[in-house]
């Protein structure tokens, strides 16, 4: 099965992935209402079911989900939050923690409300109009009791343009494992190289896809790699290498990924 056919059963959508994408792009499904983590989980379930990793499909999925994630995070950030993109990792963690605590606070409060609601489940209220003769007793508001300025003010508020944010810089990037494979093979032909060299100046998406390409090269026995320390340089060697070591190194690529993307 390919990514487009990946079957999803989410709170706001049920169907294949490509239909979901189409609906998001046509704005028939609100991206903000979509729990992207559920999409990733569905994909992981699917991978687990297959028991093997199809690199082309994986690339496609990563590209699509990453684009959706970025778009969604842009939508969720208010103007004054744009500066958050440039703050230090420590500050970002504090900010994130604050938001997580707030979300958690209200999630707990919602559980409490659910309990209140359930406790009141047996109480119904009367919803009947008062008898006609009493309704007639209700006084009509006096002529001229409302001020026309209420209407002018309302129109003034409606004329205000909200602050705008630009989504122009977001475009779905098309980077494939095949491209990155040929890039890596080119570097390998010249011998040993560092992962940093391979992804220098590239965006996060390309870095992620390069990791997959590297894994593919390892699987095919074309390359192996090593890393002396966490966040250290990852050295990639052509061909012969000890599989065990390479496997350990595969896990170590990730921190580097973080370092090079940041």
């Amino acid at each position: 099965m390919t990514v487009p056919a990946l079957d999803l059963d989410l709170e706001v959508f049920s169907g294949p992935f490509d239909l979901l994408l189409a609906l998001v792009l046509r704005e028939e499904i609100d991206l903000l209402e979509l729990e992207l983590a559920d999409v990733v989980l569905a994909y992981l379930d699917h991978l687990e079911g297959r028991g093997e990793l199809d690199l082309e499909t994986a690339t496609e999925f990563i590209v699509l989900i990453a684009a959706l994630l970025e778009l969604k995070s842009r939508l969720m950030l208010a103007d004054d939050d744009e500066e958050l993109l440039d703050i230090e990792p420590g500050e970002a963690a504090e900010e994130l923690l604050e938001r997580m605590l707030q979300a958690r606070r209200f999630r707990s409060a919602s559980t409490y409300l659910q309990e209140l609601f359930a406790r009141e489940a047996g109480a119904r209220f009367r919803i009947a109009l008062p008898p006609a003769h009493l309704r007639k007793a209700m006084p009509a508001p006096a002529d001229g009791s409302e001020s026309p300025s209420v209407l002018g003010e309302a129109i003034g508020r409606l004329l205000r343009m909200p602050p705008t944010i630009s989504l122009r810089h977001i475009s779905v990037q098309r980077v494939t494992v095949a491209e990155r494979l040929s890039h890596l093979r080119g570097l390998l032909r010249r011998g040993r190289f560092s992962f940093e060299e391979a992804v220098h100046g590239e965006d996060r998406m390309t870095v992620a896809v390069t990791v997959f390409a590297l894994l593919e090269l390892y699987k095919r026995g074309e390359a192996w790699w090593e890393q002396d320390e966490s966040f250290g340089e990852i050295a990639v060697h052509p061909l012969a290498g000890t599989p065990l070591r390479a496997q350990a190194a595969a896990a170590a690529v990730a921190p580097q990924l973080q370092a090079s993307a940041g």
Partner: protein
Amino acid sequence: MSDAEAGDVPIGGEDQRAPEFVDALVCTIEALLFLAPDPLTPQELADAAAADEADVVAALAALAERHAPDASGIRLRELAGGFTFATGPETEDAAKRLFSRPRAATLTPAQAETLAIVAYLQPVSRPEITRIRGVSADSAASTLLERGLIEESGRSQFGAVMYRTTTQFLKLFGLNGIEELPDVAQWDPTPEEQAQLRERLLRAGEARAGGGPDGER
């Protein structure tokens, strides 16, 4: 007047008409009649209470006694083959005072916006109002219709119902005609704009709904 009656002879504890035995069925029937806006037949009550109709009839008799004059302000009435609760005539004056008290309830923010849009742009369709507000105006429009402040005025070329304000609206706002509506200029955040009011409202509404972080999404 209720004050005057407050000292009236109470119903004695001794010559109680029946022991205050109120079984579960009577309670259930009481609750159902309290909730239902229209009379219920014994059959309907029996079905809902999952009881025999004969038991329901007996429960209704007990209820009638419980709600006798001087024992309760609510009476059990038999109307059109069904039973319903109604207030007793002795409470009529108080009820009239309750409903005739002047109420502060003016226009809600949603109603004020909807009414302003109709007043300044009339005729205007409901979808257009929603586009300008950025959120649905359905319940506000329904309330304004009910209160007689707006009314339908034909259909748009796309078949949507159009609204305009009523004479009632003019009276409530003390206007002689729609041309007396205040000039928006004094509340206009961008007075130098040349475009038509309608066009500008739609543009701002779409911007609000269109995904700004502080838009409506």
